[in-house]
């Protein structure tokens, strides 16, 4: 095989490859312009946790420690306390509530076991995913950071509708 024919063959391959590449140019864009454009997350996406409250604004968590027991990375720290006051004055929905509820996001692996374990539907995964901080100590989130009434929701995501296509985030919807 002569050098020339090999060069020609290679050039042909390159050209056919380039054809595919160039044919992509007029097509729709597949890259998401994050952070200018919010990214799409699926409804089951496991982001930063949310601690929920009931219709009266009382915390649902009763500090049963099941989430801490289920957690594979031991990132949940709870201190329970008795709250003997009547329902109207209480912090939580029940007479037992979490005085301290910390999640160490330096350890959390977002596996969702705590959500599965919670018997009171008090903790779920939210969609906030921008958790990076400059100071490692800030990764320790307290109850104030996690409560649904207090957590600031990022505008950098949108939740996909279940009727949408999986790759809808790449298309204009």
């Amino acid at each position, binding site marked *: 095989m002569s050098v020339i024919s090999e060069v020609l063959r290679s050039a042909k391959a390159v050209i056919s490859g380039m054809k595919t590449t160039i044919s992509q140019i007029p097509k729709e864009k597949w890259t998401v312009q994050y952070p200018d454009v919010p990214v799409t997350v699926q409804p089951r996406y496991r982001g930063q946790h949310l601690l929920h409250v009931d219709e009266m604004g009382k915390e649902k968590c009763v500090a049963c420690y099941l989430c801490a*027991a289920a957690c594979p990375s031991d990132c949940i720290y709870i201190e329970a306390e008795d709250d003997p006051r009547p329902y109207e004055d209480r912090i939580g929905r029940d007479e037992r509530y979490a005085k301290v509820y910390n999640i160490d996001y330096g350890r959390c692996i977002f596996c969702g076991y705590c959500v599965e374990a919670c018997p009171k539907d008090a903790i779920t995964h939210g969609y906030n995913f921008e958790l990076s901080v400059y100071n490692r100590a800030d990764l320790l989130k307290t109850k104030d950071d996690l409560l649904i009434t207090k957590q600031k929701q990022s505008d950098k995501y949108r939740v996909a509708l279940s009727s949408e296509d999986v790759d809808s985030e790449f298309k204009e919807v």
Partner: protein
Amino acid sequence: MAEELIKVTIDGQEFEVEKGRPLIDVINEKGFGVPSFCYYADLELQASCRMCLVRIEKMPKLQASCVIRCTDGMEVTTKSEEIEKAQRAMGEFLLANHPLDCPVCDRGGECELQEVIFDWGDVEERFDEPKNAHPEKFLSPIVANDQQRCILCKRCTRVCHEWMGEDAIEAGNRGSNTVIGTYGGWLNCSQCGNCIEVCPTGTLLDGVYRHETRPWELDQTITTCTYCSDGCQLSVGSRADEVHRIVARDRYVNGINGEFLCIKGRFAHGFVNHGDRIKTPLIRYKKGGKLIPSTWDDAIAFAAERIKESKKAGVVATSRLTNETVHTLKRFADECRDGTSYAVSDTYDLAPFFENLSAPLCTHKEIRFAETIVVIGGDVDEEQPLTAKQIRQAVRNGGANLILVNDTPSRLSHQASQFIHVNPGTVEAFVLALADPSAADMAAAKMGIGRAEIDKARETANATKGDLIIMFGKELGAEAQAVAANLPSRHENRNVKLHPLAGYCNSVGASDMMPGRKPVADVVAGSDALLIAGSLSDEEFAAADLASKPFVAVQELFLTDTAAAADVVFPAASFAESDGTYTNNDGFVQRVRRAIDPVHQAKPDWMITSLLASELGADFGYSFSASAVFRSIAESHEAYEGLRYPDLKDETRPVRVKHKLVSGADVSGAVASLRDRVSQFPDAADKITEEPRVGHKLHRVTTMTGKTPQFHLLANGNPKPDDLLVSPLFQFNPDGSPKKEEESEVAAG
């Protein structure tokens, strides 16, 4: 035991078992496993939960195995469809009215109901109607109750009745409305908390450890109680260097006490992590100045300097310290400076007793199975609750004779087969009457009883074939102790055993560690530099006038009167923070284990003493290892010879120290001087007829118990709040007066 062995077939396997044993015990021991709630070993049978059903050949229906005794040729089936169906049905019944409370309930994770339902359940729940709802309420400052979770196994009522003799808790109402409760809705018992311990569900809960954490979060450390001389084994539950609760669960501990604990052992642990603990060493640089926080190096150097300067030094130990500490203090006195005197501060010095000891000390197990028990003086119910429980069970479940000699009636006197109610302060005369029959008439007269009572007691003792146990309390002076210690040698053909009702957790051990000690007053008066580990008693403190001493160093947990009068205060570690041993009134040497790291800058007592000693130039050969201290004890005390920490590992088999026995010692001198003393007692006196209230000593607020707020309420009459749903701590001030509205809001917020 020479019991007759018979053959029992369980699930096709044949076993040889002792005749008459409860079938449920045999089944569980052989590893077949039947569930049960109401069965509790050594309590009377109840057979109400119907979970332990088995099929026994030739019996028409399923039988509850807890009430069946093994007989020869019995054929038992523990697993079949029929049995499982019955058990499932029972489970369904039990859960029909059980609230969906597991996440809130403090018992979750160690609940027997959960475990049994998990293992034997798979219940198909057909009951969909709304359940009876009752909120959780308080029965006393430390007992919380949720009647709806109850499965009516009545373990609590049986424990209250049989162990404590209080009958404080009972089942009320009838049929499906039956609930566990108490008359008047407020418990005025000794608050021992044993009902909480034995409860298989979350019906009765610990009000001190209320909604704090979960059992699996706690590190359980098996250790010895730091209150009375019974030396109960307990399990300290700690999390992140904080003691949360103390339990005696048999699943963790199976020591001399089983699941029994008293109010102090179980609930009075608030002092360990209390904010008033001394945080750093304190130095008073000038007399009349203030105690100023300092560093360890400075404090040790300062104290060593002052002790060096002094003319004569003295060391005072207390009987709450570990053997290791008392031993180190003794070595400090012996080796640091010549002529240093030493003493042990204790309400009750047992030196004369151990010098004349003629029979081994009796164990708590022997009390439970004794035939005759003679209790001379003391206040067992309030001061040695485990001993009281064993006596009560011996009488109630074992049919033992109880001869109680005391000047004050107590709960135990209702159960005594013979209660010899003597004049106040004349208990010693009974010892004289036993030792010297010729003086019996005189003794009887002084005690204000008939001679016949003494003869009757003597007859009972003479007729005893099994163990005869003689206990005596702190009413007995030095001579009477010596005489009592000698009593067994007068009854050589019988099993006589002795049981001193010592004052503190390590009274016996401290007595062993410091032979040749002097009275506290002598040591204090005779030295111008003092090292005190712990605090002096109020009387000793009043007599000592520490402020006038040139130099006093104190090792303490809190700034007590003694510590406040000191020139140097060293923060000491509590029992939960240090390793060591206590010797209890059975003569068992039992381990104290470190559950948490010492709080703040505290150090174990023996470590402080040895640091001070090395500053003074003495070398004990140990400075950081408690086991090395114990080896030093074993090398220098005959009774502890050859013992090492690994020997003390198993709390189910406690190790007895070998106290020297003196048989046939001549105590005629002591008898004579006792006779003299007794003859000087007044001839007539008014007897004390009023029975003191339950808990008059147990609920006392002391330096240690006072750090648990519930004790203040109990000591101040345990007032019943208007609102039972809210903890009394929110409704009352510590002195027992009701809180004003705005105050309670502040406290709650």
